[in-house]
C-alpha cells in the first residue's frame, strides 16, 4: 500500500450471472480493473452508459462484491479504515420522502452512534452545503425542495460522519447546468477545506475536467487510459478518449447504425 493511498482496487472483475447456478454465461461489467484513490485526491472516472463506472463505485461502497480481484482499504492498525460515503445521481429517489431534512442528515451519525443525534453537527453540515438559513430547511421534506437543494441535502448527510472518501455517482446529471456548477464548486470546496477525497463518476467530460486531479477513462468494463487531468485532456493517447473529447467539444460524429 503506497503512502497516503485510501483504497486500492487490484485486478477486479465483476460478472453478473443470470439463473441459480453460476454456470450460465454472465454479463461482465468490470474486467480486470486496477486503480487507487489517494488522500485528498479527486479522481474522475469517465465513461458512457454501460462502461462499468457505476458498478465500480458500488464495489468500493460494499454494495456489491467483486467476482475476482481485491479491494483493499488503507488500515495499518494505527490509522483506522477509511470512512466511505456516497452521493447518488437521482435527487428524487435517493432521499426518503417520509424523512425530514433533519432526519436525513442526522441518519449516518445516528447509525454509527446507536441512535444518538448530534444537532450541532447536523446544523453545521446543512450550513456547509449552503442551505442557509438552516432553520428554513431543517424541517422541510424532500418534495418541498428543488433538485439542486436535494442534492445539497444528500451532500450534507454524506459529510456528517467526516468521511475520508465520497463516491459521487453522476451527482449533477439530473440538474440544470447552472445549478450543477454550484454543486461542483461545493465539491471542490469540501475537498480543499476538509480534505475529503472524491471519486467523481460521470459521462460528462467537461464536468470531470473541471473538478478532477486525475482521470480514468472507462470503456466496456476496462480502464483504457489513466493520468493527470492535463495529460488526459490535452495529450490523450487512447483513440476512445479522443472520441469522447471530440464529442464533448461538440464535434459531431456520423450516426452509428
Amino acid at each position, binding site marked *: 500500500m503506497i503512502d497516503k493511498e485510501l483504497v486500492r482496487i487490484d485486478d477486479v472483475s465483476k460478472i453478473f450471472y443470470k439463473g441459480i447456478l453460476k454456470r450460465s454465461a454472465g454479463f461482465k461489467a468490470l474486467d480486470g480493473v486496477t486503480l487507487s484513490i489517494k488522500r485528498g485526491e479527486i479522481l474522475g472516472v469517465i465513461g458512457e452508459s454501460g462502461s462499468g463506472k457505476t458498478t465500480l463505485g458500488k464495489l468500493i461502497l460494499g454494495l456489491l462484491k467483486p467476482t475476482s480481484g481485491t479491494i483493499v482499504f488503507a488500515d495499518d492498525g494505527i490509522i483506522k479504515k477509511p470512512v466511505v460515503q456516497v452521493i447518488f445521481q437521482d435527487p428524487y429517489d*435517493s432521499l426518503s420522502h417520509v424523512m425530514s431534512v433533519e432526519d436525513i442528515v442526522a441518519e449516518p451519525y445516528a447509525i454509527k452512534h446507536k441512535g444518538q443525534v448530534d444537532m450541532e453537527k447536523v446544523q453545521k453540515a446543512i450550513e456547509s452545503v449552503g442551505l442557509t438559513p438552516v432553520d428554513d430547511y431543517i424541517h422541510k421534506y424532500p418534495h418541498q425542495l428543488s433538485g439542486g437543494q436535494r442534492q445539497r441535502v444528500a451532500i450534507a448527510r454524506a459529510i456528517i460522519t467526516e468521511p475520508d472518501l465520497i463516491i459521487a455517482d453522476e451527482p449533477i446529471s439530473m440538474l440544470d447546468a447552472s445549478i450543477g456548477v454550484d454543486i461542483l464548486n461545493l465539491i471542490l470546496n469540501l475537498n480543499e477545506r476538509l480534505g475529503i477525497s472524491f471519486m467523481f463518476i460521470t459521462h460528462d467530460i467537461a464536468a470531470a475536467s473541471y473538478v478532477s486531479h486525475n482521470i480514468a477513462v472507462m470503456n466496456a468494463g476496462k480502464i483504457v487510459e489513466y493520468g493527470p487531468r492535463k495529460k488526459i485532456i490535452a495529450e490523450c493517447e487512447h483513440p476512445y478518449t479522443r472520441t469522447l473529447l471530440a464529442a464533448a467539444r461538440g464535434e459531431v460524429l456520423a450516426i452509428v447504425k
Partner: protein
Amino acid sequence: MHRESILKKLSSSPQGIIGLSILAFFIILALAAPLVAPYDPTDMSADPFLRPSGAHWLGTDDVGKDILTVVIYGSRTSLIVALAVSVTVLAIGTAVGVFSGYVGGNIDRAFMRGVDIFLMIPDLPLILILAAYLRPGIWNVVFILALLGWPVSARITRAQAITLKSAGHVDFARVSGGPDIYVIGKHIIPDLYPIMATTVVMQSIRAILSESGLAFLGLGDPSFPSWGTTIKYAIGYPGIFFTDAWMWWLLPAGACISLLVLAFVLVGQCLEGDE
C-alpha cells in the same frame, strides 16, 4: 402516503366518509352490545317465531332467541374475525414478503416456491377437510382464513419490496452501516403503508364473507352468535319462504353482512383513489 395523511384522505372524500361512518357504527354496536341489545344472546325464554313487536323488534327465531340481540352480537363476531384475520395475514405476509424480497437470491426463490404451493391449494376442499378435523370454533375459523390468506399478501409485499429495494436512500442507509433490520424498518416498510392499508381492507372483506360462508357450512362457532349462522339456520328451516318469517329472520343478517362489506369496499376505494 404518510400515516397521517391516510386519515386526511378518508375524511376528504364522500366514499371515505360514508365508509368510515358505517364502520364506526358497527364498531360501536359491537362494543356496546351488552348495553344496546335488549336480551342476553343465550336467552331462549321467549316463544319461537314471534313476529316483530315492541318486545322483540325483529321477532324471535326457531329456538326463541331475540333476533335483534343475535344480530347485534353478530357484529362482534364479524369484526373480531375481520380484525384477527387481517392483522395475522398482514403480519405474516409482510414479514415473509419483505424478507424474501429484500434478501433475494435463492432464499427468495425458495420462499416463493413455498408460497406458490400454498396458492395452488384450492380453498374449499382444504376448508372442508380442516372442518372435518377441527372443532368448530371461531379461532379455528380465523386460523383457516389466515392460513389461506397470507400467501397473497406475501407475494404483493415481495413485489413492492423488490421495487423499493433499488431506491437510492436504501443503498445510502446500507452504505452508512445500517444493519438490514434497520434498513428494512426505516426505509422499506414506511413505503409499504399504502399496500398494508389495502391488504387490511381486502382481507377484512374476505374474512367477513368467508366467516359467514363457513358458518353457513357448519364450521361456525355455535356459541358465538354470527350473521352467518343466523342465515344458516334461517335458510335451513323447512318452509322458511312460505311464511313471512324470512323477512325478519334472514334479511337483517344478510343486510348487515352487505353493509359491513360495503363499508370496507368504500374505504378501500377511497384509499386507492387519485391522490
